[in-house]
Structure formats: C-alpha cells, structure tokens
C-alpha cells in the first residue's frame, strides 16, 4: 500500500514538473523567445540570488557554530591533544579568513557584474604581478602552517620514554581487549597460533603452549576415534578427514612455536620474553593513570581496525601482523571530566574502532577510565589478584555463515551480542 502511495506521489510530482515546463515553453514560444536568450529578468533574479546565497551560507555556518559548537569534542584530555587543538584553531583562523574573503569576492562579483547590453566586459587577460602575489601569499601562509604542523607532528611521533606505562590494545571483530604487564613490568610474547577460548590474546608461556597442545591432542584423538569407529557417509568422512588434516597442521605449527620458545628460554634464561606473559593482566577494563606518559601498543587479531580515543585526540590503526604504537599523556581524569569539563555524571572516555571492520563496526567500543596515580595503583593491585576470565565467545561465529544474522529480525541496538562488558 505504502509502496503504491510513494509511486503515485513520484509520478504526480513528475507530471506536475512536466506540466509546468510545458506551460512555460508554450508561453515562451508565443513570445518568440529563444531558450538561449537569458532575459534581463532572469539575469537579475540570479544575480540577486548570488547575493542572497552567501548570506544564507554564512548564516548557516554561524548557526551551526552557535548551535553545535558546544557539542564538539570537549577540552582535549591529553598533552598532545591540547597542542593539536591549538594547531587546529590556528588553522581555522587562517582558513575562515580565506573562506570569507574568497566567497565574498566570488558571490559579490557574480552578482554585481550581471549582464547588461550597454556594457562590455573588461579586457583583462593577465597580470603577472597579481598572479605572483597570489602565488606567493598562499605559499607563505602554507609555510607557516607546514612548519607549525610538522613541529607538532614530530613531538607526537617521537619515541616514548622507557618508563612509560605500557598498555596493549588488542582488536578483533568486534571488541577490544586491554593487556597490562604484570608485576614484572613487561608484556609477554603473544602469537596468533595459540589463540583459543581461554587465551584470547594468544599469550605465549610454557604453560599456555602446553595447554594448547593438550587441547589439540584431545581434539585430534577424538576425530581419530570417530573416523575409526563410526560409520559415516562418504562426504562426512571426507570432511572430517580434511578437518583432521587441518588440525594436524595447526598442531605442527604450535609445536614449532614451542621449539622457538624453548630455544629462546634456553638462550636468554629468565630474561626471555616467553616467561613474561604469565602475570600479564588481560582485561576488558581500560584504565590509564593521569599525567603519566602512556605507550599504547596496538595489535589486531583478524583485520584492520583503528584505535581511536576522540577525547584524547589519539588514533592509530591496528594492523594484523604488525605492532603499532601511540604515545600520549592523559591530563584529565574521568572524574574531573565529569565534574569540571562536560558536567555530566555519566561521561566516560571511550575507545572506538575507526576503520571499517564488518557488521558491528559501529559498536566496537571499550570505555576508558583515566584515574589519579593512586587510584590507578589500587586498581592495578586488584587486577593482579583476580585471574582473567575469558569472555563468552559469540564473536567467534564467522560472519559469513550467518549472512544477515540475528540483526535482521531485531533492529539496531539489539546487536548487543557483541557488546563489550
């Protein structure tokens, strides 16, 4: 029914335009006017609109700034964020000046020099001096922008100091996990071959490797026994055999990993990175201390994600097979943000995904709590006490097998199956 209604409206609309056009055409033909002859009235109308338009245009701009200026990101809560906000404002001043000047000239001239039979356009094909001026001025302004910008960029991308707080942010479809070094102050090794339900980050320790191998042994033994003892239809059997082959290959890869680990431990002893992981804290809570340099170590399990913390003006891609880093110094705690900056008790910093990554990309988030150093130590101590609880793994379900999965029946926010926390 609605479809029909829409269709009727569209058809009627088109007919209306058609009729208007025909009436106009007939009158034009009656008056013997040619289509390419733009009448003085038309020219005047457009010239007037050329003057009215910038009024509306700037008005719209001013209205947007007035109505939404305070809805933009609040005061930057990181040291470099304050710096980039200054840089941004500096750029805005230059850009808005250029914006206003060029637009005013454009629309003013367009409206002013409307066609008149009694006048001829000026003959003014070039003026080298003028052209030089408007090559040199933008170049000079840009030089300032470039120097200021690169200076800031160099500060941001410089190496982190060795005593920075290290936090690993681990991305996968569609959530984030944080990992903190335990008492030893260093993150342990991790490897994607070890990932399973209980070790979502694939942290490599002699213990975790052993567990994983045992688990794989059990799986393989079970498949073996099924193949040996049950009568299966051919296709099923072939499928199972293929799976068995795959599992054997995967197991061989974990054995390789074990070899590498053992060699490293033999060589480096206690200093080996493979012995650092046992006390790592893997958590769905993301806490940072205020006024301390933080080095985010960013990794991905599956595809490219991007760790974006808008309030801290921080962003870095999470690329599978690569480790990226971002250093920063948070300057405002969550509490201060709530009470002094945004005046909202429910405010939370948030880490979100900013690189297209699939169906629930729009809901891949993790709240961030910035606390005082003392609170942070207390939280840390508490984390060290409790062992990591693996989250249930609904996100493990491959997206492809459920093309339009549960979301088709239940709209938007019922997508919470993969919601963090």
């Amino acid at each position: 029914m609605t479809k029909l209604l829409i269709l009727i409206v569209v058809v009627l609309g088109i007919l209306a335009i058609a009729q208007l056009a025909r009436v106009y055409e007939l009158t034009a033909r009656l008056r013997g006017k040619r289509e390419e002859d733009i009448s003085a009235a038309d020219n005047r109308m457009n010239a007037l609109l050329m003057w009215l338009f910038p009024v509306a245009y700037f008005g719209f701009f001013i209205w947007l700034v007035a109505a939404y200026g305070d809805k933009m990101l609040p005061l930057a809560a990181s040291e470099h964020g304050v710096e980039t906000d200054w840089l941004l404002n500096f750029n805005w001043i230059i850009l808005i000046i250029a914006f206003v000047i060029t637009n005013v000239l454009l629309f003013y001239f367009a409206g002013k020099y409307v066609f008149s039979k009694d006048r001829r356009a000026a003959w003014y094909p070039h003026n080298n001096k003028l052209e030089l001026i408007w090559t040199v001025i933008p170049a000079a302004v840009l030089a300032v922008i470039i120097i200021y910008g690169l200076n800031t960029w160099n500060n941001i991308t410089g190496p982190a100091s060795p005593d920075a707080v290290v936090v690993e942010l681990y991305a996968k479809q569609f959530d984030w996990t944080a990992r903190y070094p335990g008492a030893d102050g260093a993150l342990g090794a991790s490897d994607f071959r070890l990932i399973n339900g209980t070790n979502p980050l694939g942290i490599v320790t002699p213990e975790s490797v052993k567990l994983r191998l045992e688990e794989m042994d059990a799986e393989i033994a079970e498949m073996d026994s099924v193949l040996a003892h049950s009568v299966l239809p051919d296709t099923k059997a072939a499928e199972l055999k293929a799976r068995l082959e795959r599992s054997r290959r995967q197991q061989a890869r974990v054995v390789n990993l074990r070899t590498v680990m053992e060699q490293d431990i033999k060589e480096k002893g206690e200093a080996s990175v493979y012995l650092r992981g046992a006390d790592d804290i893997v958590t769905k809570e993301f806490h940072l201390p205020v006024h301390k340099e933080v080095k985010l170590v960013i990794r991905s399990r599956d595809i490219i994600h991007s760790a974006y913390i808008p309030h801290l003006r921080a962003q870095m891609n999470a690329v599978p097979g690569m480790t990226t880093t971002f250093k920063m110094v948070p300057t405002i705690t969550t509490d201060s943000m709530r009470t002094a900056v945004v005046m909202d008790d429910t405010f939370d910093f948030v880490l979100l995904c900013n690189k297209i990554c699939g169906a629930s990309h729009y809901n891949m988030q993790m709240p961030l709590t910035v606390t005082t150093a003392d609170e942070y130590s207390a939280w840390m101590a508490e984390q060290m006490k409790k062992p990591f609880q693996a989250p249930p793994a609904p996100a493990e379900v491959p997206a492809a097998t459920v093309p339009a999965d549960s979301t088709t029946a239940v709209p938007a926010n019922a997508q919470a199956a993969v919601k963090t926390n």
Partner: protein
Amino acid sequence: MGATIAHTDGHAHAAHHHHEESFISKYIFSHDHKMISKQFLITAIVMAWVAVIMSLIFRLQLAWPGEGFAFTNFFLGDKWAPGGVLDPNMYLALVTIHGTIMVFFVLTGGLSGTFANLLIPLQVGARDMASGFLNMLSYWFFFLSSVIMLASLFVEGGPASAGWTIYPPLSVLPQSIPGSGAGMTLWLVSMTLFIASSLIGGLNYVATILNLRTKGMKMTRLPLTMWALFITAVLGILSFPVLLSAALLLLMDRSMGTSFYLSDIHIAGEALEQTGGSPVLFQHLFWFLGHPEVYIVLLPALGITSEIIATNARKAIFGYRAMIGSILAIGFLSFIVWGHHMFVTGMNPFLGSVFVFTTLLIAIPSAVKVFNYITTLWRGNIIFTPAMLFSIGLVATFIAGGLTGIILADSALDINVHDTYFVVAHFHIVMGMSAIFGMFAGIYHWFPKMYGKMMNTKLGYAHFWITFVCAFGVFFPMHFIGLAGAPRRYYSYSEFPMFNGVVDLNVLVTVFAIIGALAQVIFTYNFFYSIKRGPKAVQNPWKSNTLEWTTPVEHIHGNWPGPLPVVHRWPYDYSKPGKAEDWVSQITPLEHDEEEH
C-alpha cells in the same frame, strides 16, 4: 597489437557522410566520438541514479536508526531490509558501492568519458578520435563493467562491502564480512574492465590532442578544457595500471592462498596459514592510484568550468598560462602525495612529514585557480545560463572543500579527524560536489552540441538552486559531526552517548539529501524531455569562440562538412577592444597588426 592500431579512418570522412549506416553501427557499436560520448553520458546517468538511491537508503538509516522504511524495503526486499530496517552488512555494502559507482562510474567514466569524447575532436579541430575502434572498445568495456557492478548487487552474501578502498584483509576474507565473497570477486572483475576502459580511452585522448590538432591550433591556443582533459588522461595512464597490479595481487590472495597482504591472522576460530604479507602494502599501491584519481575526477570539471565562466562572463579567462601551469603542477604533485591517506597506519613519521609537505604544496596551484576564476568574473558581463550557475557553484564548493583539505593534510591534525565525518564532508564537497557541478555545467552548456536541442532554462535554474543549497545542507553539517569525533561507515551512532549532541544534525542532513535527490528528478526529466521535445538549437547558442560551435547542428561524420577549420587565435577573445562583437571565433584571422592577446 599491430592489428588493433592498424584500423584507420583517415581523411575520407567528409566525402561519404551521406552513406546510410545500419542501426547497430550508428547507435550501438558506433565509432563516432559524438555518439560514444552520449553513450557514456546516459550510462553514467543511470549509474548515478543507482548510487543516489543507495545514498538515500543509508541516509534514512543514519537519520532514524533502526526504523523501518517502505522505501528501503522496496529496493532491498526482505532479505536485506526486513520490515524496512536496513541490515548492517547491507549498510556497509551500500556505502561501498555508492562510493565505487560515484568515484569511478559517474565522475571518472561519466565525466571524462562524456566530455573527452565529445569535446576533444571538436575543440582541437579533428574529424574524429585517433582511433574510433579503440574508442568504441573503451565504451563497451565501460558498459560491461557497469553491468557487472550492478550484477554484483544481487549475489548471495551481497555486493562488496569493504569500503570503496577495499583494504585487505577485510576484502580478502569472506569470513570477516559476507560481501567479501562473490560480491568482491565481481567487484574486482568489474574494476579490471573499468581500468581497461579508462586506459584505452586515455590513449585516444592523448593521441588526439597531441597529433590531430588542426592547422594553427598550437598547444597555447587550446581551450583549458583540452588541457585539463589531456593531463587527466596522462594521470590515468600512469596510475590505473598500478591499481590493476594491486588488484591482481589481491585476487591471488583471495583465490590462491598467497600472502602478499596477509599475515598472522586468526579468524573464525582458525589461525590462517598466510604469513609475512603486509596489509599496508596494498594501501600504498591503492593510493598511488587513489590520489591521482581524485584529480582525474576534478581536473575535467575545472577545465569545463574555465571554458564556461569565460564564455558566460563574456570575458577572457584571467591568467591563461597560470591556469595551464596550475593544471600541470596539480597533475605532477598528485603522484607524490598518496601517503597522506595513511598517516595513522604507523608509517615512518619522517615519511609522513614529507607527505605533509608535498600535499600542502597542492594548495598553491589550487589557490591560483580560485583567484583566477574570481578575477575572470570581476568586471565581466555575466549571463546566468544554468551552465554558468553550476560553474560558479563549482568554484564555491572547490573553495569550501579545498580549505578543509589543509586540515586533513596536516598529519598532526589528521590523527584526530582521520576517517571521521570530517573527511566525508571534505571529499564530498571538494571532489564529489565540484566534479558533479562541473558535469552538470558541461551537460547544460554542450547539450545543444550533443543533441541539437536546448534544455529548459527555467528547470535548469530550479535544478541548480535546489542542488546548490542542498549540497551545502548535506555536507556542511558533516564537518561538525566529524569534529564531534563521529567515525564514518558507522551503521548507527546510538551506541555512543557522546554523539547524542549531533545526531539531530543527521536528520537535517537526510532531509536535505532527499530534497537534493528530488532536484535531480527535475534534471533527469529536463534532460530526457529536451532530447525528444526540446526547442531546436542554433549553431552557436552561447556565442562561444571555440571550434565545436563552428560545426553544423546536425551531427555528421567527420564533424565539419567542408575543410577542417584553421585556427588563428586563442579561444578567449571575449569583449576584445576594437571588435564589433563581444566574441571572436578562433577561426577568425587576426587583423593586420592585431596582437594575439
């Protein structure tokens, strides 16, 4: 190789234009550049409507997330929009295909394909393109690739959904997103054909401009449209093959288990076997095309605008040589700036600095162009044809979008606005709107040349003013949404309280988008109605200087019934002192002791 090029049309055209052609050789497999240009244009209009409807569907979702719309259900059916609620996977598919179609099929194939084919032989004074056969091939590759792209909308799992930039591993692994199955394969096939089409077209454009100019048509007497289309074709020849190589490696990763772009991936409960590749490698290869592509889209529009502004301001274009210089500078620089798309991929900071520098340099020739346009209007005698309105509109969008580019090019600032709506606003205004305005301007201006009819001016006014207002209504607020930190390609923003302040802007944007789309109905109606019933055009309706207006209104094979015209002057002798008329055609000989310009 020898065989394809050996085809020749030669000079004999004029002699046998009375020769009756069959329907197929005249309308379908035509070798005539004017017919091919019309084929490109009509295909592009169809593709543009597909992309516009897609944008309306996802704009509805963004404005009223989770609500059902009969409109959505009407186009997508119950599979992708049960109860009219858009599926999140389909949302990503729609933004991907919307981007692909707009960037490649409308603004590259449609814009360059239409106007390069129409204008190059006419404006340089040639009987046809260097090779009519290759030209036909170029269109049919384009057509086939359009058909395949549309066909990909109907496959199981939906069309490609990894964004128009198809970054691996998302585009490689069907486990990560259903659109990376058959849909992605068709996308790659379609794009391969598209690249072939662009390359073949480009060869012809360059060869025609360089070799088939008529007597007296020095390079410094070429209309700026020709310069723009020439550099565009060169950019295409240099950059599209690189995209093809990137796509081929991607295809191998998808089908042969190679790992050019993949490494250390654990997905769907399994550790993949690929090791050692790098997803960032793809980004480098992609953007080596991708950035010049932006100028492949933009330069023809700027060229068209230069021509139309000069004609309708009845005034010589200001700084002709500076305009050519800036086109050359933009073309050159576009090859050394690709890294600015990758500031937050963990690239070497020093390399990042280099890209900041080269990118911001582009602002200089762009600024020169804007100032030159404005000076051309100054003390002009402006006739507001719809084409002129769109040209002025282009300058306005080029200013608004170009300026925000300075912020995005600044790597320190890009950290915070990268991949947010700020970027969406920026490139839609500077690339999307500017190029589409250029395309509209071109259509209104050269419609009499293409179809021998006039388009309705009043409808043109309505079309322009509604479109112009809506363009800013749609894309201006997006800057604010972006500065509030809202990422692009989000199905909904309701999961984040921090965006609550700006969600009502999304409603505003969508309302403008709907009105803007309706304005395109006016255009489409005007276009097709005028083809059939428009008043007959005269030979030179806009009193323009360039050569295309010296050809007869009725199309003939070989363009000029008699000898090719001989050119005596540059194309911008408008309101030249000492002349009776305010225009002097390029074929008018210089008077005794008249200076050229």
